[in-house]
């Protein structure tokens, strides 16, 4: 679908806010420390909750002794699974897979615990300190059982079972038969094999989770403030658990200190805190500590893939067969099974493969659940296909750039259907690649590598040409609606209130949506306020994840503005004694064609519309409109990242010498926000490539439970970037915008990986798994007899 005159915005943007790099209106309050996060809320009479959590990965609970703890002055109550599980529903999964075996997920542990950090009991006390002290007085007697940790071993016949009642450790299987794979393999000149592992990662948002619930007994309604990305989805799912009607629940996301997918969920703690507020008829607050966050907030990635690649000797990649094992942990959180299916869907990357076959097995282990984490399934896919491309090049002795160009579609071939059945909306992969090579001074870089290698240095250049799927998506394909909602209200004074159903938590839409509204309405940006995050204010919404807010939320706002402008034209016509067809709208003013001197502004029109003394017959008072934008397709941003690295032969340390990224997210509302998103995504990719790894030992003990052991990049670890962009508008929404929040996380890891493998290739190393810690790199060098 291309943008035509029928579906293009009828209102022209003016004032030049759209496309302008502007500082964010959110930032002053964040920087000055006057923003309100959950822990800042001052709720009179609030009680504090702390959770007792399992120190075992797999165990029967023999007894829980709470008598001593209950006697501690200030303790109001202590509740276990026995007290709560029959009164609160189980945690739902919004994306179950047919045929999958989902274990029943009670909000507190019942007879058994299934992962280290599993909540077993909750203390509610007058102060947080008392609640914490009470934890030390509670004695839980466990009977430890063998833990299921290695997902491949979990599939063996004699493995202990994570959930014995399911009879298997297979959580689900899912297959994507994309085209005639067997036929393609028959045509192949050769078949390559590549086993590739993407480690488990811990999102580590700077603000851990937290929530506070307040029961309003007089109205039988509940308010839940929670550090979440999805207040609307929580409002839809939570009522069933705590047994109140949907329209008696208000969910508010206050300032949220980062989510990255780890707050795209309905958590047991949120349900328990809500229930306790109702049960005790007092507000209850819970603030998560970092150790809890590392253990009991969703993890990301964790896939093992065995790939067979059918190729022709000229570098054409015909087909891939991929067997993927996804270690999903012990329970199904909101989107747990869906995430690795996105890997399958995106496995062809930006290439015209004839066929792709993916066989995915989800495995239950005694670990925390995996779920969305920045990129959610797409980083794994990009990593795989981009490593495959480099492998094909090295096996055939071809240039990795040439191999990619050979397999890419031309920009004229869009919209383009992939072997996995996706319709890529628009793209010009060659352009982004060319621009990136230009910024990287590619020929000079190659010469630099040659010279470095002659001098005995391990110098590598890597690139990734990635595409990703975001701004999900058409409601037919989504679990529960993929639209977004937006409301625009001209106030009596002429000021503007924009309400979005998206829930930005750092993405900057309070600024970018104001830019859009300012341009489309022709009002000063200072006159616009953007509200979000409160289900009482934004009464519909599908929240923020998967890089959707601007493409979908922004479009809903434009739709609403168009409705208002239409209505305003009718009113202006009446006031100017003309007809709506004769009314022109330009730069925020309404006037009769050609008669610019007698123009009406929003202030005047709003005043008339609400005071309503001079309304034409049939004209409904007010100037406000709300809309649901239903996207016809997802969007497919893309780009090229190029990285140059140096590997210290003796210590295995990897230094990033040069980093170039050219990303195409369609039309850009605010280049400053886009740069920020790309930088942040690259930073998290540097982490995934060089240092991050969520490690459980063979007993299921989480060894990376704090920042002492889980390494995330610091400022000094992030390379200087050279950033560029191309703009290939998306035909999937009136703004022409694609998402950008996750692109950096998707494009960067493969580029870094390819660079490191390239650096090691003179030693005969063809692949190395993440993360590239010094020891891992050093061992690979040792194995090949490389001197140290």
């Amino acid at each position, binding site marked *: 679908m291309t943008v035509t005159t029928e579906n293009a915005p009828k209102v022209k943007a003016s004032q030049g806010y759209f496309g302008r790099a502007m500082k964010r209106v959110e930032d002053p309050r964040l920087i000055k420390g006057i923003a309100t996060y959950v822990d800042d809320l001052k709720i009179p009479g609030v009680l504090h909750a702390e959770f007792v959590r399992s*120190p*075992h990965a797999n165990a029967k609970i023999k007894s829980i002794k709470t008598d001593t703890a209950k006697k501690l002055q200030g303790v109001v109550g202590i509740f276990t699974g026995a007290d709560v599980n029959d009164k609160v529903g189980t945690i739902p999964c919004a994306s179950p897979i047919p045929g999958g075996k989902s274990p029943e997920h009670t909000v507190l542990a019942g007879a058994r615990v299934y992962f280290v950090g599993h909540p077993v009991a909750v203390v509610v006390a007058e102060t947080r300190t008392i609640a914490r002290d009470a934890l030390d007085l509670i004695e839980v007697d466990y009977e430890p059982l063998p833990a299921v940790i290695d997902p491949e071993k979990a599939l063996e016949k004699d493995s202990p079972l994570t959930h014995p009642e399911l009879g298997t450790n297979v959580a689900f299987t899912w297959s994507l038969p994309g085209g005639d794979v067997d036929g393609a393999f028959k045509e192949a000149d050769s078949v390559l094999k590549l086993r590739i592992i993407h480690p488990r990662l811990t999102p580590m948002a700077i603000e851990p989770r937290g929530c506070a619930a307040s029961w309003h007994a007089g109205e039988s309604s509940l308010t839940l403030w929670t550090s979440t990305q999805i207040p609307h989805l929580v409002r839809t799912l939570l009522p069933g658990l705590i047994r109140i009607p949907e329209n008696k629940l208000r969910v508010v996301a206050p300032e949220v200190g980062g989510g990255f997918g780890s707050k795209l969920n309905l958590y047991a703690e949120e349900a328990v805190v809500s229930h306790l507020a109702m049960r005790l008829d007092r507000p209850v607050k819970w603030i998560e500590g970092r150790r809890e966050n590392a*253990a009991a907030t969703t993890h990301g990635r964790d896939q093992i893939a065995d790939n067979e690649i059918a190729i022709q000797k000229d570098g054409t990649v015909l087909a891939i067969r991929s067997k993927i094992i996804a270690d999903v942990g012990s329970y199904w959180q909101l989107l747990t099974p869906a995430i690795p299916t996105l890997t399958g869907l995106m496995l062809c990357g930006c290439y015209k493969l004839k066929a792709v076959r993916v066989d995915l097995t989800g495995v239950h282990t005694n670990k925390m659940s995996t779920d969305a984490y920045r990129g959610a399934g797409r980083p794994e896919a990009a990593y795989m296909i981009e490593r495959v491309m480099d492998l094909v090049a090295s096996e055939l002795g071809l240039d990795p750039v040439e191999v990619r160009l050979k397999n890419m579609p031309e920009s004229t071939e869009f919209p383009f259907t992939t072997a996995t059945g996706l319709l890529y909306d628009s793209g010009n992969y060659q352009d982004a690649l060319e621009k990136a090579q230009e910024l990287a001074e590619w020929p000079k870089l190659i010469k630099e590598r040659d010279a470095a290698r002659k001098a005995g240095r391990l110098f590598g250049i890597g690139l990734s040409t990635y595409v990703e799927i975001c701004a999900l998506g058409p409601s037919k394909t989504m679990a529960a609606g993929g639209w977004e909602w937006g409301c625009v209200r001209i106030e009596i004074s002429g000021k503007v209130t924009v309400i979005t159903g998206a829930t930005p938590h750092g993405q900057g839409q309070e600024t970018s949506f104001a830019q859009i509204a300012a341009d489309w309405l022709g009002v000063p940006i200072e006159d616009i306020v953007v509200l979000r995050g409160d289900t009482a204010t934004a009464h519909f919404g599908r929240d923020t994840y998967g890089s959707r807010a601007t493409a979908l939320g922004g479009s809903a706002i434009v739709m609403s503005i168009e409705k208002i402008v239409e209505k305003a034209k009718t009113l202006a016509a009446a006031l100017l004694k003309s007809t709506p067809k004769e009314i022109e709208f330009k730069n925020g003013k309404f006037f009769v064609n050609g008669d610019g001197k007698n123009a009406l502004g929003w202030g005047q029109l709003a005043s008339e519309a609400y005071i309503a003394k001079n309304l034409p017959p049939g004209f409904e008072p007010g100037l406000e409109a709300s809309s649901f934008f239903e996207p016809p397709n997802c969007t497919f941003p893309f780009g090229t990242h190029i990285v140059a690295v140096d590997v210290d032969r003796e210590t295995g340390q990897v230094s990033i010498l040069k980093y170039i990224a050219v990303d195409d997210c369609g039309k850009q509302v605010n280049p400053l926000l886009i740069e920020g998103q790309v930088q942040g995504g690259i930073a998290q990719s540097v982490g995934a490539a060089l240092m991050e790894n969520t490690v459980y030992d063979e007993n299921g*003990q989480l060894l990376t439970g704090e920042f002492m052991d889980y390494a995330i990049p610091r400022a000094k670890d992030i390379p200087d970037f050279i950033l560029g962009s191309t703009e290939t508008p998306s035909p999937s929404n009136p703004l022409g915008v694609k998402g950008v929040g996750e692109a950096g996380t998707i494009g960067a890891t493969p580029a870094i990986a390819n660079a490191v493998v390239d650096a090691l290739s003179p030693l005969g190393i063809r692949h190395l798994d993440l993360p590239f810690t010094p020891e891992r790199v050093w061992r690979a060098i040792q194995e090949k007899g490389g001197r140290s």
Partner: protein
Amino acid sequence: MKLAATYVFRALPEKVFAALIDPAILQKCIEGCEKMEKTGEDTYDANIKIGVAGIKGSYVGKVRIEEKKPPESITLQAEGKGGPGWVKGTARIQISPEGEGSELECESEGQVGGLIAQVGSRLVEAVGKKMQDEFFRKLGKYLEG
């Protein structure tokens, strides 16, 4: 965590073996042991403070003799839990005559869980080794009078 070490004592295997099953001597030799009480033929209740410097935790648990072949071998199993988490260990000990004394080989395996595993994993092996060495050093001192 797996450790293996050999110790030499100026005492005969019988005396070494006897010391290893005497709760009073065990309590003396285990650093931080506040209680070691025999509760059955082959079981003991124990309270031990384990840690290094200011970072110590109190653990309450049980010690059990899994296998014994006096005076040649004995396998001890211990487990305990406390604020910082839980600990579990097994020590397989072989005692053989060596000159006028004995040579003792100890192969042990330890596991920890909870807080100490999450934040102290780098210390676990070193602390375990230190505890084992310290235990046998004190045992040696006792055996030599």
